[in-house]
């Protein structure tokens, strides 16, 4: 990694700051997974890593390689886009699965399935 020493100081400070901050956000998200108590709360923790964490680390990467190669580097944006677009799909599936399970097991505190309007009229 010797070529990283070519990085000017101002860029190094920004890149380091963003990387460390992004990693810290991802770490806090992981801590949240342990600390939260219910499944639904745990749905919120990983989104920290996939929004704030990815954003900052990718920005750091863009700045780092743009300065090193003295040209615009943009393909990290694709990482951000793909992560932001794909994780909600997983989380929504997990959330629905949890909701279904809790309803079947008749856990308290879970909103009941709303009946379709037709059934209501029949009653």
């Amino acid at each position: 990694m010797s070529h990283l020493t070519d990085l000017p100081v101002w860029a190094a400070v920004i890149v380091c700051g963003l990387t460390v901050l992004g990693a810290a956000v991802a770490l806090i998200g992981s801590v949240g997974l342990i600390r939260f108590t219910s499944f639904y709360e745990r749905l919120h923790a990983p989104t920290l890593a996939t929004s704030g964490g990815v954003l900052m680390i990718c920005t750091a990467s863009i700045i780092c390689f743009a300065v090193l190669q003295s040209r615009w580097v943009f393909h990290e944006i694709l990482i951000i886009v793909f992560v932001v677009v794909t994780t909600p799909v997983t989380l929504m599936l997990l959330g629905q699965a949890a909701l279904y399970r809790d309803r079947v097991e008749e856990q308290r505190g879970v909103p009941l399935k709303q009946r379709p309007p037709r059934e209501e009229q029949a009653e």
Partner: protein
Amino acid sequence: MRTWFPYPLLSVGLLLVWLLLNQSVAPGTIIMGTLLAIGLGWVTLKLGLVHSHPRRILLIVRFGFTVALDVIRSNIAVIAVILRGQRRPPNPGFLTIDLDLDDENALALLACVMTATPGTAWLEYDRHRKSLLFHVLDMENEDVWLDTVKRYETALKEIFG
């Protein structure tokens, strides 16, 4: 135009992705990307996706900025909740809201935005009642969350209207 580009936006997006992946705007890359964009556009035609026509680029950009700001704000809020730990545990809860969005792509976008934002998680959308069930991490003020979703809804309605 329609026969060549059944989904113009998708094709443009694919071309952009291709150029970004190759990191070049050489003529060869552009030709290859265009061919791929046209070909994959036809392939997606087979999927029978719903057409929608997002209008007004300015509104889209503004929506993007609001979402980015909200993401940053809720990131900080959720970090605070996690770091507080058991001293002041969060007050999670379910909320229901009636939506008035007919466009499926607008709904998908709303789902992505809400799930990507820490603090809110999309759980269930009822097509018949057009009501959405979502989970929020900290229910300190319900109305703020409902207002946020309503705000998104209005913006999306303007964009896809």
